[in-house]
């Protein structure tokens, strides 16, 4: 982070802008944004989960398709990896938002590893690991496995721990 102690650095400090507080006027946010109001807002998120789930399924199909292309034509590595990263990142957020925690975790594992692989060579075993992630994500969504997936989830998490990309 920048060091504001550099004497040659000309620093201007603007006093905190109170305009939003003034806009609030007499509104008491403790009353307006009460626990009940927040609970209603949480229900909006819960109600949206079906739509997010359907979207995740579509994204998982896309992901599978990209991974298949990657396996058969692994020429444009960066292009395919970026598509996988984009897809898995999207699944991570939407799956997490709709209660598919294990799917979200898998998607995160996939995009993080693919990001690391942008700087490395993609080996056949690394490709298998990518495919395993994509297939697992799809299966869990198709089987509607919410939350941490119970025993299945434990087994998958153990598998993620064991997986190492070959150098």
């Amino acid at each position, binding site marked *: *982070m*920048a*060091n*504001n*102690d*550099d004497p040659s*650095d*000309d*620093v*201007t*400090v*603007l*006093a*905190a*802008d*109170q*305009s*939003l*507080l003034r*806009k*609030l*006027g007499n*509104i008491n*946010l403790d009353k*307006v*944004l009460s626990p009940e*109001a*927040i609970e*209603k*807002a*949480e*229900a*909006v*998120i819960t109600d*949206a989960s079906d*739509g*997010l789930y359907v*979207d995740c399924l579509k994204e998982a199909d896309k992901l599978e398709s990209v991974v298949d292309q990657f396996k058969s034509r692994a020429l444009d590595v960066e292009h395919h990896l970026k598509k996988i990263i*984009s897809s898995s*990142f*999207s699944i*991570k*957020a*939407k799956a*997490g*938002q*709709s209660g598919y925690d294990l799917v*979200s975790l898998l998607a*995160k594992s996939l995009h993080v590893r693919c990001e690391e692989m942008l700087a490395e060579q993609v080996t056949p075993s690394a490709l298998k690991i990518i495919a395993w992630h994509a297939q697992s994500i799809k299966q869990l969504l198709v089987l509607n496995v919410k939350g941490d997936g119970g025993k299945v989830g434990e087994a998958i998490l153990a598998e993620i721990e064991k997986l190492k990309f070959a150098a």
Partner: protein
Amino acid sequence: MPPHSLHAFNILIVDDELLIRNLVRGVLTSLGFTNVTEANSGRKALEQIASNKFDFIITDWRMDDLDGIDIVHHIRKSQTPPLCNTPIIMLTGNTEASYVKTAISAGINGYLIKPFSAEQLVKRIRAVIEAPRDFIISKNFTGPDRRHINQPPPEGMDRRKKRKKK
């Protein structure tokens, strides 16, 4: 609609995912923040910002053209209020500490990780409205004062010099 004036707050949501924009809008509307504008890309966001004054902005990070950090940089580098000190909340799936540091260094006001809860969003919004921070403009950093937690310096270090406030 709830009987109060949160609709006076003009909010911009930026996310390339329609479902996420709908979700954030739905949560905001439920709370009473009904004056919400959407942008589905970084470029569209900058167009909106050029022609409208927003009270705060909630933006995604990863987008195809300009991303959330580009938006933050654009706003902060103007270095002229009221645009430059528009509060910005980053709503993102980037969870690693390095990303959080990058966003703070860019000059965000709040960081919220997806999946988010209404409670977490409310907390960030209330901080922006009720606890505004001094705003720093310098060669190396433009943004809300990152030293907003009132703690003494680590043992063995002196407190930094005070700067004149404008």
